[in-house]
């Protein structure tokens, strides 16, 4: 987003008369990318919807504290990422007494999800992604699916470009290994 557009948003948010109207525009502008960012982490539509609502409500409450030291998109991505990681941590804690681990649970949810139109190979890819640690999953999704640059990711995740590149490299290696051990993926690759 251009700096001027960001400035216009900040000016609009600072004025109590235009705050709600500008925020409404902000929701419409960013809801889709934030939704997909969250959805790829939590997999379930209902969970992604809850997290997205919390993200925007937190942003609304925190507007006064946002001084424009980062882009509006970076600020929103950060809130969404924090909300997602907190959600996953809480879910993991709640699930500690359960038989399945969180990743198996997410995968079961994915199989039952009405709002997943992926093929068997795409399910396998999601399975492979779930074998990664959460932060590595974030990096992989942001780079592989959302095509974000390392510089954009650096600002959102507050991690150096070098560390992000290394993390993505390891993620790709692990996923490749997981998929190459799976006949279905290999058949698809050759077919």
């Amino acid at each position, binding site marked *: 987003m251009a700096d001027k557009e960001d400035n216009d948003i900040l000016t609009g948010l600072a004025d109590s008369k235009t705050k*709600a109207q500008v925020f409404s525009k902000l*929701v419409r502008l960013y809801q889709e990318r934030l939704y997909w960012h969250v959805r790829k982490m939590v997999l379930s539509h209902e969970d992604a919807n809850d997290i997205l609502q919390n993200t925007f409500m937190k942003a*609304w409450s925190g507007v006064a504290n946002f001084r424009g030291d980062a882009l509006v998109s970076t600020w929103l991505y950060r809130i969404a990422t924090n909300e997602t990681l907190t959600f996953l941590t809480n879910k993991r804690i709640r699930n500690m007494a359960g038989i399945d681990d969180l990743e198996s649970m997410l995968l079961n949810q994915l199989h039952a999800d009405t709002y997943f139109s*992926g*093929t068997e190979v795409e399910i396998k890819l999601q399975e492979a992604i779930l074998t990664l640690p959460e932060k590595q999953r974030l990096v992989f999704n942001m780079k592989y*699916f959302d095509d974000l640059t390392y510089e954009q990711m650096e600002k959102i995740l507050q991690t150096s470009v*070098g560390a992000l590149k290394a993390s993505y490299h390891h993620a*790709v290696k692990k996923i490749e290994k997981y*998929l190459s051990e799976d006949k279905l993926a290999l058949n698809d*690759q050759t077919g």
Partner: protein
Amino acid sequence: MERKSTILDKMGNKNPFTVPQNYFEDFAAEMDLRISAKQTTLKKLIKPWVYMAAMFIGLFLIGNLFYAIYHHNKTKQADLYEIYVMSQMDQSVLFDYYVIETSEEEQSSE
């Protein structure tokens, strides 16, 4: 550092997830409602406190005004009384009054 993966490249990065119909339109409308509700709630919460503060400020100002009037009247009455007393005295009475008062003060200090 970035590594190319043949398998991942062949798979492509198509998004396999979907959303309910009109989800984003509905979501934005839902957020508008939640924000306006939050604004109204905040106004409702703040309003009684603002009214109460205004009431106390009003009471304080009215009290101050009455006190100022009362104090002004009292001072005026005292001034008038002094003028009246002074008008009833001639110089010899006044002299006696000061002499008696000064000697009483000296006695009490001893």
